[in-house]
């Protein structure tokens, strides 16, 4: 068991590209830390630096009170679960788990005990003689977990371990990993690009973007008080609506002058015929598209937008300029072409500086 501490950790490549631009965070003993961010944000690089698979350009990585910058991966007392599992295809499940222990010269009896115990926990006992090629995706994932567990390391590292599984299995394995980690209470660092996985697994959530940390904290705190517009749109699905606050129909009383962007989560809207909640906002929308998925309904509404007002963003995957997404429970709701009024109370509003880099408390 160990604390993990990163101080001013930097990574630059010989070609000058800076993958990690100074990252600091701490993971307490037995905590589950999730690094989340879009692809290319440096989260995997950072994990690989902790593992010792990438060199550290600057700063200090400390595992259990020992600075490991110059320590070989095998000597860091860690275990890693790879995205593609990286099982040895020619070895049986048993040997896959036992290989690392044998290389460390552990006595045969002890290896047997540890592998059998891990196989029992992971329900792999019946398939110890099989080769990885004969296993399903979920079973391979378990073997990869088993290979990590038998080592009884100070620290588990997970590199998107669920991304090769189908949706249902992913949810089930997510719950299993969390339960297992709670029981072993081994400090863990987990990398994912899936915000849902991040929200449900993390004790500490580290949101990364462009090689930097955007926000660190408890998942729900981050959800409720995103520090930047990046975090606001990345955490929570569908993403938060962001509206330039000088925009039409937005009277945000009492907000600081620097509050250039207002954010409202789709689920915080309500549809009301008239009235504006005190201090809140009301938007007139023309319904463009409706997606009814059963438990809830998504309404894509077009806000009237003055031509000269630039909207916040229209990157692919984000909402189009002037488009607002409203989520309401159930399967009712307006029809395409209807005009609706979406209102949100003041306590559900988020405000950010115009550049989106800082949150402003309302």
């Amino acid at each position, binding site marked *: 068991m160990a604390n993990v501490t990163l101080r001013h950790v930097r990574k630059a490549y010989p070609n000058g590209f800076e993958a990690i631009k100074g990252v600091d965070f701490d993971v307490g003993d037995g905590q589950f830390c999730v690094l989340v961010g879009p692809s290319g944000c440096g989260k995997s690089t950072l994990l690989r630096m902790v593992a010792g698979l990438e060199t550290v350009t600057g700063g200090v990585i400390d595992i259990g009170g020992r600075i490991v910058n110059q320590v070989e*991966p095998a000597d860091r007392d860690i*275990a890693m679960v*790879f*995205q593609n599992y*990286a099982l*040895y*295809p*020619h070895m049986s499940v048993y040997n896959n788990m036992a290989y690392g222990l044998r290389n460390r010269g552990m006595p045969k009896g002890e290896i047997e005990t540890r592998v059998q115990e891990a196989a029992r926990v992971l329900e792999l006992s019946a398939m110890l003689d099989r080769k990885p090629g004969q296993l399903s995706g979920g079973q391979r994932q378990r073997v990869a977990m088993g*290979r990590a567990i038998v080592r009884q390391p100070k620290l588990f590292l997970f590199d998107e371990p669920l991304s090769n599984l189908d949706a249902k299995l992913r949810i089930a394995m997510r719950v299993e990993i969390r339960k297992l980690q709670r029981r072993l209470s081994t400090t863990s660092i987990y990398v994912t690009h899936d915000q849902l996985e991040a929200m449900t697994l993390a004790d500490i959530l580290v949101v990364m973007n462009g090689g930097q940390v955007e926000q660190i904290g408890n998942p729900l705190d981050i959800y409720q008080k995103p520090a930047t517009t990046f975090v606001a749109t990345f955490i929570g699905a569908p993403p938060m609506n962001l509206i330039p606050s000088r925009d039409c129909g937005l009277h945000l009383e009492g907000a600081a002058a620097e509050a250039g962007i207002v954010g409202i989560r789709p689920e915080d809207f309500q549809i009301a015929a008239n009235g504006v909640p005190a201090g809140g906002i009301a938007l007139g929308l023309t319904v463009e598209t409706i997606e009814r998925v059963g438990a809830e309904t998504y309404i894509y509404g077009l806000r009237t937008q003055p031509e000269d007002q630039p909207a916040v963003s229209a990157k692919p995957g984000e909402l189009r300029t002037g488009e607002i997404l409203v989520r309401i429970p159930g399967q009712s709701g307006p029809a395409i072409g209807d005009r609706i009024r979406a209102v949100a109370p003041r306590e559900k509003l988020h405000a950010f500086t115009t550049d989106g880099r800082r949150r402003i408390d309302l």
Partner: protein
Amino acid sequence: MVEHRRFGNLLPHLILLAGVVVVAFPIYLAVIASTHTDSLIANGQMPLYPGTHGLETYWHTIVSGTGRTTRQPVGDMMLASLIMAVGIAAGKIAISIISAYAIVFFSFPFRMTTFWVIFITLMLPVEVRIFPTYKITSDMHLLDSYSGLILPLIASATATLLFRQFFMTVPKELVEASKMDGAGPIRFFFDTLLPLSVTNIAALFVILFIYGWNQYLWPLLITTRDDMQTIVIGIKKIIDVHDALTEWSVAMATAMLAMLPPVAVVVLMQRLFVKGLIETEK
């Protein structure tokens, strides 16, 4: 499970059939010729069905050879060819797998430069660099020895490249998992890379064995002793007698015998070989 409709029509079938006939017919002729008497063949009246002298011709060829030209029984020639072919194939595989391992999994200064120097030099096979190679082999007193026969032929750029290609497809994560599991470079090579390469090694062995079996120029230069004469040289000697007295049946029998070991290697290694070749289909 899934059947895919391919383009299907008669034309390619016929073309391939024609190809089979063109390629296989000479060999069929050779088999037939080896079972008739020399006088029949020399008369140009060879029938297209097997004759009756097959067994005695082959026996004669293997144990006493074509006395008039090569002074060696074909059995001895085959042994010499076998030693050379196995030596070359095994040596080439050992050298090239190690080189490919160094090139793919190690990073050191001028890695690519080294690779290209070796590569361009080795792309020039022994026939082209035969002159300096001969001089050095001779200076090292390796003439008339199996070492001299085999060693200059075992460096192989093509095999190195094939192994390099295969190693490139080995997931980086496997190397990293190995490191995490405390396996150093030597352990990784023997515990993981070598077992994974078995089918590739088998496929290469087949190809290189046949390459070695077919060597002509180098053995011709290096060996003068009769008992190191390879079968390909033997065939050449028989064919070179341009007169009516050519022992056609013995010659054809020798040709058939020369084909046997390559065919045997292909057939024996077939399962591993095919596995090695169709691996991308997985």
